[in-house]
């Protein structure tokens, strides 16, 4: 059974993304613990990739800093082993297909199961290519998270029907990063998704402010925030953890009772 659904049992879910190893793994670990302590329901751990084509400038920068610091995939696994000593909320990896493929899909996904990673998000693995990793994910009880975009239209039903864990609904066209407004008619998309599946729907891309998170959570099951957190880490470096905690608290408070 998917452990990810636990993230949606505490009111609307706040999902926090953080790039592993920016500026170093110890800071990442402390940021994750602060985020969880302040109400994050699910943690998305970004494994850095040299060429993150779905990311805007903020997360691109975090990837570059992490790789420049020498972070390897196996170091990220060690980070999770450490976090799992006390962190009980669901955790998923967010990375690119080549990171999984080059490590060896069986070895990578098997390790995920062993260390307590509950799902994997790969923005460059659409429905048509999911067979690349899906059978291995199923064998190891790791959810391969599906993404739905504003341009998905006739594809929504097909994707939603087979979705595991939660559905990552991309709020807008373009890459990750804060936006002043989100204009997509997400309500219709969420209704379409809910007509075919009970899998929870969380909205991400462009959300940075508590009121935006609240707007998104009124129509869905959760909000995903990445760039805004990564920006705090960029600004405060090794001193980021309390600032991340404070930010997560303000976001979770805005959506808790919706």
């Amino acid at each position, binding site marked *: 059974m998917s452990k990810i659904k636990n993230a949606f049992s505490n009111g609307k879910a706040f999902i926090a993304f953080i790039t592993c190893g920016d500026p170093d793994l110890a800071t990442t670990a402390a940021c994750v613990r602060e985020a969880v302590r302040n109400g994050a329901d699910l943690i998305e751990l970004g494994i850095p990739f040299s060429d993150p084509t779905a990311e805007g400038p903020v997360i691109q920068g975090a990837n570059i800093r992490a790789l420049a610091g020498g972070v390897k995939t196996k170091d990220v696994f060690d980070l999770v082993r450490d976090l799992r000593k006390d962190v009980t909320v669901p955790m998923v990896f967010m990375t690119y297909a080549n990171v999984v493929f080059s490590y060896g899909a069986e070895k990578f996904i098997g390790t995920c199961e062993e260390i307590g990673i509950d799902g994997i998000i790969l923005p*460059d693995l659409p429905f048509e290519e999911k067979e690349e990793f899906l059978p291995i994910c199923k064998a190891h009880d790791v959810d391969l998270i599906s993404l739905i975009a504003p341009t998905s239209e006739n594809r929504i039903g097909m*994707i939603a029907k087979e979705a595991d864990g939660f559905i990552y609904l991309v709020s807008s066209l373009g890459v990750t990063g804060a936006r002043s407004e989100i204009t997509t008619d997400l309500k219709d998309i969420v209704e379409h998704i809910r007509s075919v599946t009970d899998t929870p729907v969380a909205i991400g891309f462009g959300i940075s402010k508590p009121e935006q998170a609240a707007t998104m959570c009124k129509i869905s099951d959760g909000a995903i925030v990445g760039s805004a957190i990564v920006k705090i880490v960029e600004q405060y470096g090794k001193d980021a953890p309390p600032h991340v905690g404070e930010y997560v608290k303000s976001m979770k408070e805005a959506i808790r009772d919706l």
Partner: protein
Amino acid sequence: MTNPAGRFGIHGGQYIPETLMNAVIELEEAYNHYKNDPEFNKELSDLFNEYANRPSRLYYAEKMTKDLGGAKIYLKREDLNHTGAHKVNNVLGQALLAKKMGKTRLIAETGAGQHGVATATAAALFGMECVVFMGEEDTIRQALNVYRMRLLGAEVIPVKTGTRTLKDAVSEAMREWTTRISDTHYCLGSVMGPHPFPTIVRDFQAVISKEIKEQMMEKEGRLPDAVLACVGGGSNAIGSFYHFIEDKDVQLIGCEAAGRGIDTFETAATVNTGKLGIFHGMKSYFCQDEDGQIAPVYSISAGLDYPGVGPEHAHLHDIGRAQYVPVTDEEAVQAFEYLSKMEGIIPAIESAHAVAYARKLAPTMSKDKIIVVTISGRGDKDCAAIARYRGEDIHE
């Protein structure tokens, strides 16, 4: 050779964000409709012939042949096309297709600038808006082409991420496409990226081998023994190979940019040094480290300075139908100078990689054998960089 999922053997596919899936599906449907449409093909053929100066010449390089003392050498003169390179074949096809699809804006990546210039040209001709992404490093190496693109009405955006070369220009063009899809066609410049691009680009470039075959039958009454072309992403090479793939006696040889050598880290020879991976929408061979991080490749040639290779080339390599040989910067520069002095033809530094291998290969073959070398582009754009390589600073 390609199945419905856009696979070439194990390579190819559509590894792209969900946001772009309907765009590539729409493109595939439009292409499948228009590729057999007589009116579309008539329009494209008129553009090729009247605007782009096709068919390009198949020139017997007599002095070079005598100098090397072996196989007879023919040069397929894609450098004589309008805009000075083979890139125009693909761009005219894609721009016409985009126009039929109702798109009003073209975006493109470019390395050496040849594909950017060709896209800017087609955009000017069709009255479309044009934005070209070019690595900042390449805008310096190829300043003349930046000026040409702007002169043609395109906006050139220097890409300042990563290695600031072709790879980063592709990533940035893909990012831009996800922000604006409804009026914009991504005019990808090589046989790479997600399906259907490797197939579409190949089909538009296949005019090269179609012509070589006809011209060779006319001049020699037989097929050549070997066809050589340079390979970055691999569009002029697949164009030169395509109609010979079923002719098993014709050797197909792709010449990769080895940079400072395949035993160094400063190389872009993907088939020779890369391994299987998934990047830029496709499964293929890529230069990468053990964690799958894409390597910062290097070549003197901005057009070959790419860490991957088109999926059909990866497949032709797997099945042994084509071979891929490394050619260093030094060998390419020597060939650049050699062809200029020997035949009065200044080749693009990219194409000079194929000329360099022809200089090695021809003397090992008997005089009754025939080699065709595709000169994918003209070398004017490279003169300043080659002068610099030789320690001479010239002002353009």
